[in-house]
């Protein structure tokens, strides 16, 4: 593709925000139109990207730019390939990327102390089978959110602008292939999200927004330190100081793991973690907060409870996936060794999240809070799939990330529609609505079923593969995660049945008379439900793109395994299993 | 430069600085405090110029010029604040002006 499609996708929402900023705030119809149009254009471009990605002759053909020429690295084959790459100089000069390392290597080791290395952060974009689907999901969810915003919404203009900015931030996280650029967008996405949470939503949104902000910033500061740590550690050993992700992946493979930090007390030496492990943990902390994993989750129920439904569509739908995306894109590739070392820890956290979230959802009476806990539970499953560190689990995790985006967005839209009609979020105050809202009941049923993995709806494939991947690591993980799905069935059915079935009951303070979905509401929900059904019956479109990437990430993570005959990686990957059929 | 003269200038500068500091610390009228601050700044200027002469460089005089500029802008802001406080009918007593504590 000759034109920079990724840059256009990335900055289109920002341009939309500028256009909206120029419109007087009274012209609500126009503002909403521009917001919807921008989001639709992004989705259209994302679809073009999907098709173009699909049409690539062989997803595994490396299009890696020739940026790696350090003499210690030239024999290493990059395990990860990215497509549609774009690169331009940003901080530090691009030219040094190609030529600098060797000269640095040869003569300047001694002066490294006094002359700071060039920053070498570039504007580098690219996609792989993982990101391309998340970009499409982002486009879809922002479009749905834009449609779902009511024209009467107070401060519509502010909302639209902030929404567009946050879309650019999210897309930047997904598209950037440079650690500094990634961090930049990671933090940049936070700011509009904070104001969206602060300005629009329920009564307790102020403290919730602050909690979210402080939590995430605290996590990402450690990540910033780790990014710099990777830069300096890799640079000191190979002479290549760069923030470029593909290069950094190669560098981190070849660097010596370093010695464990140690502390000598009274003659006893306590050994702690190696530098790479520290870096892994810092990244993992940021991602675990974003997902969030129990016990770092407490910002989520508050935020989900008080957010406004259109905001939650993309906040819960895509922002929470960024953590899981980060685990795959950064932890598995940059720190393959620690990924294996900490595999049991992350699996345990994932399983804890599954069960804890499910139990909390079982108890919650506030519908939105319940969906929030359900989301914790589902994303715990995604983490289990990622840290199964095998092809099945990782494919399942990627599929499940896309599916969960669809499902959670659908659930929050449903909750919003109920709240708009009955002014309540308490599931006990509602009952028997199916008779007078049959269309809503049907759509809600499909989403609720998908939420606990009903076959031939989208999440079955993902959950099945994740459980299989976990089973290959250890059956106990799969059993524990499977128990979570049983509880999920319990609380989802109870929500659906409680609200839709039984004899009709609505709260006294609700406006008299309610109606089934209006056309725009159907237009918002129906595409989600249709996608849930279609991707459940026919998951091949996702899998065709993800299976190569998932394999690459697994291969990448397997570099961290000391090859032994009984290593878990040998079971699914590599020559021991021979050629696939 | 004559060492005696040098010692004298520095001594004068120290004396001005001390007087200014005592004025800042003990007086309650903001205008007087301001004057004391000006006195301290000028003590610093004197020291700078003296050292500049002593080392035969222009650095000290350049610094002194910068300090004068800063002092001028500081006076502008400070006097504006004092006038503002006075216009709101407040007594000009530094110990009374402690609302910013909270």
């Amino acid at each position, binding site marked *: 593709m000759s034109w920079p499609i990724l840059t256009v996708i990335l900055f289109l929402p920002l341009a939309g925000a500028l256009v909206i900023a120029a419109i007087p705030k009274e012209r609500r119809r126009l503002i909403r139109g521009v917001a919807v149009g921008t989001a639709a254009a992004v989705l259209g471009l994302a679809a073009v990207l999907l098709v173009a990605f699909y049409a690539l002759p062989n997803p595994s053909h490396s299009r890696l730019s020739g940026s790696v020429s350090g003499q210690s690295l030239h024999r290493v084959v990059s395990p990860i390939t990215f497509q549609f790459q774009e690169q331009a100089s940003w901080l530090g000069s691009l030219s040094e990327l190609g030529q600098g390392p060797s000269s640095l290597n040869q003569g300047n080791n001694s002066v490294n102390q006094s002359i700071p290395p060039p920053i070498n952060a570039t504007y580098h974009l690219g996609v792989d089978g993982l990101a391309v689907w998340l970009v499409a999901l982002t486009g879809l969810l922002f479009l749905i959110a834009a449609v779902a915003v009511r024209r009467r919404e107070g401060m519509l203009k502010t909302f639209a602008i902030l929404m567009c900015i946050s879309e650019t931030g999210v897309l930047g996280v997904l598209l950037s292939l440079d650690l500094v650029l990634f961090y930049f967008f990671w933090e940049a996405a936070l700011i509009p999200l904070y104001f969206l949470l602060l300005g629009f939503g329920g009564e307790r949104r102020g403290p919730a927004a602050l909690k979210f902000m402080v939590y995430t910033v605290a996590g990402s500061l450690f990540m910033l330190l780790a990014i710099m740590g990777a830069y300096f550690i890799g640079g000191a050993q190979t002479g290549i100081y760069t923030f470029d992700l593909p290069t950094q992946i190669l560098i981190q493979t070849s660097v010596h793991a370093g010695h464990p930090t140690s502390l000598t007390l009274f003659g006893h030496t306590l050994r702690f973690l190696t530098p790479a492990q520290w870096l892994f943990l810092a990244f993992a902390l940021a991602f675990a907060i974003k997902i969030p994993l129990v*016990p770092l989750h407490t910002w989520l129920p508050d935020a989900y409870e008080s957010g406004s439904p259109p905001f939650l569509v993309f906040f819960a739908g895509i922002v929470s996936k960024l953590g899981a995306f980060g685990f795959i894109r950064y932890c598995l590739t940059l720190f393959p060794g620690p990924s294996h070392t900490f595999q049991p820890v992350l699996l345990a956290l994932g399983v804890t999240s599954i069960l804890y979230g499910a139990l909390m959802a079982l108890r919650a009476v506030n519908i939105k809070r319940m969906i929030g806990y359900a989301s914790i539970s589902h994303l715990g499953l995604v983490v289990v799939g990622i840290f199964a560190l095998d092809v099945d689990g990782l494919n399942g995790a990627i599929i499940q990330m896309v599916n969960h985006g669809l499902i959670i967005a659908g659930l929050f839209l449903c909750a919003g529609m109920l709240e708009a009609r009955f002014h309540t979020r308490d599931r006990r105050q509602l009952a028997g609505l199916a008779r007078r809202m049959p269309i809503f009941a049907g759509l809600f049923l499909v989403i609720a079923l998908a939420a606990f993995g009903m076959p031939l709806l989208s999440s079955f494939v993902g959950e099945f593969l994740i459980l299989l991947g976990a089973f290959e690591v250890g059956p106990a993980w*799969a059993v524990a995660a499977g128990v979570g*799905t049983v509880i999920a069935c319990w609380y989802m059915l109870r929500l659906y049945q409680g609200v839709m079935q039984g*004899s009709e009951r609505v709260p006294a303070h609700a406006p008299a008379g309610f109606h089934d979905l209006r056309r725009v509401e159907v237009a918002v929900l129906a595409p989600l439900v249709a996608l849930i059904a279609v991707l459940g019956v026919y998951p091949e479109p996702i899998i065709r793109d993800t299976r190569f990437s998932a394999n690459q990430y697994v291969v990448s993570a397997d570099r961290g395994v000391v090859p032994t005959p009984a290593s878990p990686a040998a079971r699914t990957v590599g020559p021991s299993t021979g050629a696939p059929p | 430069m004559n060492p005696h003269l040098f010692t004298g200038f520095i001594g004068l500068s120290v004396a001005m600085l001390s007087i200014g500091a005592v004025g800042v610390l003990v007086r309650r009228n903001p205008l007087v405090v301001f004057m004391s601050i000006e006195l301290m700044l000028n003590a610093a200027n004197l020291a700078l110029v003296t050292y500049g002469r002593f080392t035969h460089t222009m650095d000290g005089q350049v610094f002194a010029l910068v300090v004068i500029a800063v002092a001028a802008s500081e006076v502008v802001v400070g006097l504006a604040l004092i006038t503002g406080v006075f216009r709101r009918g407040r007594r000009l007593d*530094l110990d009374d002006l*402690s609302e910013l504590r909270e």
Partner: protein
Amino acid sequence: MTIGSTFATVGAAVVLGLPLAGFLVISLGGRRLPRAVVRWLGPGVVLAAFACVLVLLAATLLRPAADRSVTVMLWQWLQLGVPKVHGVPGALGFNADFSVTIDPLALVMAAIITGVGGLIHVYSVGYMAEDQGFNRFFAYMNLFVTSMLVLVLSANLVFLVIGWSMVAFASYALIAFWYERPTAVAAGRKAYITQVIGDLGLVLAAFLIFVSLRGPTGALLHTVSLPTIFANVGPGPHFHNGLGGSGSGLVTLVGVLLFLGAAAKSAQWPLHTWLPDAMEGPTPVSALIHAATMVTAGVYLVVRFHPVFQQAPIAAGLVAVVGIGTAWMAGVIGCTQHDIKRVIAYSTMSQIGLMIFAAGIGAYSAAIFHLFTHAFFKALLFLAAGNVIHAVHDEQDLRQLGGLRRRMRLTYPAFLIGALALSGIPIFAGWFSKEELLGSGLVLGPVTPWLWVIGVSINALTSFYIFRVVWTAFHGAPRSEPAEAAREAPKVMTIPVLILAGLATVAGFLEVNFAGWHPLNLFQAFLQPVVGVVRAHAAAGADAAALVAGTLLSVFGLGVAWLVYGRRLIPADLVSRRLPWLYQLSFRKFYWDETYEVVFARPVLRLAEGLTRVVEPNVFDGVVRGVRDAIGALAQDFRSFQTGYFREYATVFFAFAALALLFLGLRIA
């Protein structure tokens, strides 16, 4: 080649596609679709599928016996494997295709599902005629038939699981069909959650097979294809056990996990409590799903996986013991229930327990044959009971019925035939299948012949409770006004009932086997390519004695019921007065509902409650609040420095400046 893979592909696609199309048209059409269309479309697609099954059946029968199984791939569904490219190693990931097997076992099941299912669809046109949700009902029914066909035709474990779970959903939707009744809603939820537990067992079994099945060379196969699994587990051309040796822990675990799935679906202990509650659904649903088809899927599963169970004697023994135990327990409970549908539901549980028992001891053909006859007479009993319920305006309590014999002159004989067939009275279908089933129990399985003794004693219980229904509901005087005013059901409901009555009378003659005398084993011969000949005959004398004993016990139960409820020579409250604990045990269904409530549901809810009230606010959020408060407290301490007196700030400033000067001066000095 067998019946021709193109033929099989087209046949399977049509059989599956017809009900699926029915479901899609009716569900997407919603309320706009006129009832007149649904009335024809709903049953029509199922009966058309039945015709197609019959064609496949005929084509299979025309083949030689050894050549009656064909597996065709319909769809390459999921493929995670990637080849090695550019030095990046490939991966042998999970692959699943939608393959179907057309073999005698699958065809028998498909014939029952579409045949009996078609009749019940026709019946439903009458039964549901007045209902608001007529279209919704047929959408779910067609979905159920589709799912069930996926389940029995699939040649891939993943699609078996998919069918397995979709059946559970359809069952849930139909149980909770009248969603304004709280009891129906609760029953649906209970059924679904139980099914999900069973699904988990099945899924784990699939995983276990996937990660540990080895081929003849000892290499891991990583497959979920059923023919491959069976070829590498049981006896075959390359005999070896791909899941560890015979009786190994691995194959036993696979067997137990499979049975967990089977137990949930077939309402066997310990996952049996949902079935009686499921009677909250409309009666045709009870007939189709909770008698003829879905609940027998567990039997199908055990029979289909018989190569695994043959290698796992402990698991198979467990299956047999649980089956016979459930059969006996359900029989005892059935004797005291007052709801006409619940009595039949417990009899279903009991009869399926017998089938599971037969599958556990290795009498696979007998199990499927009983499944076959049971589908007729149990659907018959339910539909006849449905006629009764319809006639008395949704009254299901036996104590409110009575005297219907004269008012329902077609339903009464039909119900009677069903009861006779269920009891195992000679010449009716149940007699043949039970005789074969129990005869096998005499010589096969663990702790022979004690399980047989229990099994035969169940005969007496069965005939007692079903004839208790016959006498209380149809004989005597009407005990309520609706019963007084009852009228026979319309033709669209009676004709399916009468067809089923005919089948329940004659179906047994497919398998005439009077203790080895003049055997005519048509059914067994048909299934033999799939399940093999496993029936071992006892000495003819013992066999005959068993046959006579079983029949006599059935007659004995019938006689007792007649004495108690027909002639009233024995007071009906004899047991409840003399042995109140036994009566209560039976009436309260052995307290399993209460036990599960106390052991599972309540602790989980209490745990959730505890997490919500204690752990979340105090531990997880507590740490967060602790950090916040600590920082706040620190800030509070620093606040005291801020007095607001300019003079103090300046003093501190000068003091530090002086100290700094002093320090510098000292260093220079």
